[in-house]
Structure formats: C-alpha cells, structure tokens
C-alpha cells in the first residue's frame, strides 16, 4: 500500500457528505449550453464558480481556456494538470435543464462532460475538506473546442503556450467508471460530402444520386486491404442525405474515422480514400469533397509505466475493474508531448450521446476518489522517472 491508496476508502465516505456541492456544480455547469465553438457562457460560469470556491488565480489563457491554479508547497516541482473538456455535443436549441432523481441525474451532456467539469470545479472544496495539500501546483483547466470539429484545439493551444515543464496530467471524463486510458491511436476523422447540382437534373437522363455516389465511395473503401499489424481500422460513423422518399438526393454526407496504432498507416489510408474520392468526382462529374475534421497522433504510456501501475493499484483498492482502450481525448495531446497522463471516468450511466443521458450518483464517489488518488500518486513521483 502507498500513502495515496491508504486513505481512499475513507475519502469515499467524506465525498458522500459533499454530494450536494458536487451535484450542484454538475447541474449548474451542465445547464449552460456549450456546443463546440460556443463555450463562452460556460467558461464564464466556470471561472465565477472557481472564484467562489476560493481559488486565488482564476484566469484564461490566450485561447480562452479557463484555468484555476492551486498553489503547491514546492517551487521546484512542475505543476500537475487536471483537465476536463468544456464543450458538449448539444446545440443551444436543446433543452439543457437537468432532472435530479433519487439516484440519478438526467440531461443533455451530463455524461459528456458536465460531470467531469462539475468535479473539476468541486476539487478545491474537496481538497480543503480532506485537508489534501500538494507539492506541485494543481492546474484545473477546462478546455474548449475539444470534441468533434473542435479537434482538441483548446488543449493543443494550452500546452503549446505553457512555457514550463508539466509533471503529469489527469483527464477527467464523466464516464465510464473503470476506464483507464493511457494510449491513443493515430486518427484522422473526415467527412465526405457529395453535392449534385439540381440544374443538371433536367438535362441528364441518368441524373447522379448523391446517396448512391456515397454508396460507391463506401464500397471502394471497403475493398481496401487493411493490415492486422499495425492494427488499423476504418469506422463509418455517420451518414445523412436526401430530402424525401421519392426525390433523387442532391446532397449526402458520410462521416468516418481512420484509426491505427501507426501514424504512417493512418496517413496512407487517408491518401487511398482521397484517391477514391478524386476518382469518383471525375467519373460522376459531381462535387465530391473530402474534408479532414480532426486528427491526432498515436502515443502511449507503457503498461508498466509507474503512473499506469499506480492507477491500477488505486482502482484495485477501490474495488474498480479497470478496462483500457485507445482514447481520442486530451490524453493524446499530453502523450504526444511526452507528458505522462491518463484519462479516467467518474461514474456509470446510459445514453451518453442522447439528450436524456442519465448518470448514476453513487458510483461517482469512488470515481472522484480515484482521481484524488491519481493526483496524489503523481505528486508522490509516479511521473518523475
């Protein structure tokens, strides 16, 4: 047992007594819509709440990522980052009012990432209540423009402009409790849009259909040979198009991701898809556009890295079953800069991307305790090797 695991079960009990404050932060944050690129109102609330919780240094960086700094006791130790993305997949037109049930909170974005931000806001009070002090400064950073087309711009800018070394980082996601992400795949996320000029319809007997052209794109991508090593896959994630049943579709869009644990393979496959798109554009004489929405590089910690081992120990102490998969979150940006980091989930829930996403309240206490344990582990030197 380490000093940072000894007290974790006790922490869980104390955290339960702070339920109202943690839930309040989650609800107040989550009820402010923050679609990517429009996070300002949530940023303002974040800074206001941090200031109310007695955080002396509340500011924004040059990119308007909100940051709170809790001073550590040592001037020589680099800071520890705790980050949560501020943006949510839901637009302002969606009802963001949450419902608190007996054991749950329901509402748009509660699992992506209102709880994560709510916990971040609660940390100063939690540290105070548990009398936790750290050698390192703790940087509480809400990062904007993270998901989807945000392409992790917030965290990229924050780390690019941070001039001093960083000791380690914890990326906080609302769920799923038990996730331990310590590696990220290389990834390119792209959209293929087909637009057919309606003016051509009258002049051509065999007028091209945007949906059928995308279907041809899919068929040709499916014919690509993907290697088993390096592990590589293409995920077709979204498709939309057309107006009504009896009318040829003039517009259609396909969203897909290329993932691999080798960056070169991602680039190679992307090049193949670009060739497919170019070929079909000429063949059908339509507007067929491939757009890169976001990308990240493959990076990872070793399974036996002291930080990973420490988190596994923390999870074991708390009776949590860890599971790992590649993460497309802020983690990849930390790792690509050789900053040891993990992503952890706080609770369990369902309907993650739905407007009625529902999080369970009780599991979050262990979820928060694991984050405290991880910060303590980093402060005790888990990333210093």
């Amino acid at each position: 047992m380490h000093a940072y695991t000894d007290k974790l079960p006790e922490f869980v009990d104390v955290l339960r007594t702070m339920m109202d404050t943690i839930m309040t932060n989650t609800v107040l944050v989550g009820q402010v819509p923050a679609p990517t690129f429009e996070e300002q109102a949530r940023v303002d609330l974040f800074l206001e709440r941090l200031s109310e919780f007695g955080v002396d240094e509340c500011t924004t960086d040059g990119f308007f990522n909100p940051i709170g700094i809790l001073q550590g006791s040592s001037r020589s130790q680099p800071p520890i980052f705790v980050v949560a993305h501020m943006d949510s997949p839901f637009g302002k037109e969606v009802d963001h009012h949450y419902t608190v049930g007996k054991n749950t909170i329901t509402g748009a974005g509660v699992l992506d990432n209102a709880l994560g931000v709510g916990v971040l806001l609660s940390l100063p009070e939690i540290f105070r209540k548990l009398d936790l002090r750290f050698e390192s400064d703790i940087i509480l950073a809400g990062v904007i423009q993270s998901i989807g087309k945000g392409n992790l711009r917030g965290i990229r800018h924050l780390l690019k402009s941070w001039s001093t070394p960083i000791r380690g980082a914890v990326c906080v996601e609302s769920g799923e409790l038990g996730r331990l992400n310590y590696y990220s795949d290389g990834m390119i996320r792209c959209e293929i849009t087909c637009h057919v000029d309606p003016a051509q319809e009258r002049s051509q007997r065999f007028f091209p259909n945007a949906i059928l052209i995308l279907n041809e794109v899919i068929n040709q991508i499916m014919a690509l040979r993907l290697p088993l090593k390096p592990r590589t896959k293409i995920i077709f994630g979204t498709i939309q198009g057309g107006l009504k049943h009896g009318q040829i579709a003039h517009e259609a869009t396909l969203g897909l991701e290329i993932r691999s644990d080798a960056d070169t393979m991602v680039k190679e496959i992307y090049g193949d898809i670009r060739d497919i798109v170019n070929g079909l554009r000429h063949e059908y004489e339509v507007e067929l556009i491939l757009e890169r929405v976001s990308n990240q590089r493959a990076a990872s910690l070793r399974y036996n890295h002291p930080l990973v081992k420490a988190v596994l120990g923390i999870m074991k102490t708390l009776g949590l079953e860890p599971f790992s998969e590649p993460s497309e979150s802020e983690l990849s940006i930390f790792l690509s800069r050789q900053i040891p980091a993990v992503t952890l989930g706080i609770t369990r829930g369902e309907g993650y991307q739905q407007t009625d996403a529902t999080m369970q309240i009780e599991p979050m206490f262990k979820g928060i305790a694991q984050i405290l344990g991880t910060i303590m582990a980093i402060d005790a030197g888990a990333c210093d090797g």
Partner: protein
Amino acid sequence: MNRTWIKTNTFHHKDFCDLNHLVALKRRKGLKISLCLPTLNEEKTIAKEIVIFKSELMSRHPLLDEIVVVDSGSTDDTRDIARTYGADVYRAADILPHLPPYTGKGENLWRALYVTQGDIIVYLDADIKNIHHRFAYGLIGPLLVNDHIKYTKAFYDRPIASVDKTIRPTGGGRVTELVIRPLFSLFFPELTQILQPLSGEYAGFREVFEQLPFPIGYGVETSMILDIYEKWGLDIMAQVDLEKRIHRNQDTKALGKMAFAILKTFINRKISLGMIDLKEELHDEMIQYRLVKGAIEPDIVQIKGVERPPIIELPEYRAKYHPPGAAR
C-alpha cells in the same frame, strides 16, 4: 401617490451576491431563515431545488436554517425524493390535522407557518427548471440589509416587444397583464409598480405572514399584496429582479381558473375594505366550455375562495410561537 417606490424599492439579485455578508447580517440580527417549497407532483424538479439550496445556502454559506417541503398529496415520488435529499417533508393535511383539509398552494403556505422555525420565511415554487440559489438569496437580501423592508417579491425577465422593436424585459404573465394590472390601475395605482404581483416567489418576516389571511388557492399572491399594503403600506415591500425563470407553461383554460380565483379574492377584499358594495353574493363556479364528440359541454369547476384566517388567531400557533410571557 408614491411613484418613487419602484426606484427605491426595486433591487437586483446581484446586489446581494456577497453571501458571507448576508450570513454575517443574519447572525448579527439573531435570525433564523426557513425555505418553504409547496409541492404537488413535482418529482421532476424538487430534488434539484433542494440539492442546490442545501449546497449553496446551507453547507457552503449557512444562510438557510431549514428546507421544508409542504405537499398537497402528490401521487408521484415528490415526498420520497425530497426526503432522500434531506428536506423536512410534511403532508399539508398532517399539519394541524384537526382542521379540515383543503388542497391549494395557499393552504400549504399557511400550514407551513406552523412547522417552520424561521423568523424569515422564503416561499419558492417547486417547478422552477432553471433553479439557482439567487432565487433565495435575492429575496432574503433586502430583508437583511434594509431594516424597514419586511416583504420581498420576485420579478423576472419576460421579454415583450416594445414599439421601437427592441425586446425589453418588463411585464408580467397573461393573467397579470389582463387581470391584475387593470384592476390595480383602477383601484390601487401605486401597486402597479409591482411588476409581477403574481410571481410565486416571495419572502418575508413571520411577523407579517402570521397576521395575514391566506386564500387556499391562486388568490394568495394577490391577497397578500393587498393586505400588506392595507396594513403596513407600500414601503415595507420590495421587489427583486431574479432574471430568468423557466417553468411549466399553463394553457389558457387553466389561466382562466386562475383569473377567476384572483378576481374573487380581489372583489372580496374590496368589499371588506368598504370600497364596493355588491347587491348579491359572488358565484362559486367557473364555467368554461369544451367540445366533446361534436357537442358543446360545460366544464364547471367549483372555486369557493376559501380563506384561512391569520394564523396568529390559532391558539396552538400562539402557544408555539408566542407563548405567554415571551418577549415579542
């Protein structure tokens, strides 16, 4: 007529956001503050209200001493959920159980006076979707900061288009603008300065509430304003801008019933003040019509306009809150 009240007695919740200052004032004055939430089937919103008030105004800033839910007999999980999150929960009928029970918000507010401990009582509706602790501290603030203010009332942004096509937050809801404001303009022009007399959120000192009769239903807000105005004048009242309030919208028929109850309360007050004299009794039935399978049928609801007397007239209340020999 006092036309300056709207300037001197209108506040914004931000005027009172220094919660440590409010807590210090409360302690210095030796006051207790109760938050009362009257409910009827509010399982979707009640927990959020309790959690936020407990966190912000009890745990972090001890401004409230208790949160009391008085329920009209919900058939959903309102009471159970409220209890789970630590509120003191009562069925209205179980408070002063020897009195005949009535169902209505006013009844809950009146009975709450018997179970709450506060010198100041904050009444908030339990169906506010965008609840925030400003709803309570905004109403409490003027009562603690200004010695002469004994009653505060909320008003909100209700965007209405003005002549110059800009949107201005001013007026009240439909019943306010179509019923109350014309009545106030006709009989009590000073009271038109109260922007939203029907808002369901208000706070005041027990010494005020205990001396007021409470209509059991919708008329309670109107009667409260008229009675306070009559007894103590406009100056002990204040109104506070709480910005936006999001809640369930009511259909026109429901608003019709609300208007009926309010009109009845208003006319009864006029009679008791000797301002008008009716040749016959007011009727108790609100008659609306509906179309059922092509036929027009009346939809009749009894709205009797029952009122509870000032609770200070109850011996058991006086024994509890003003025992003989206790200083007042």
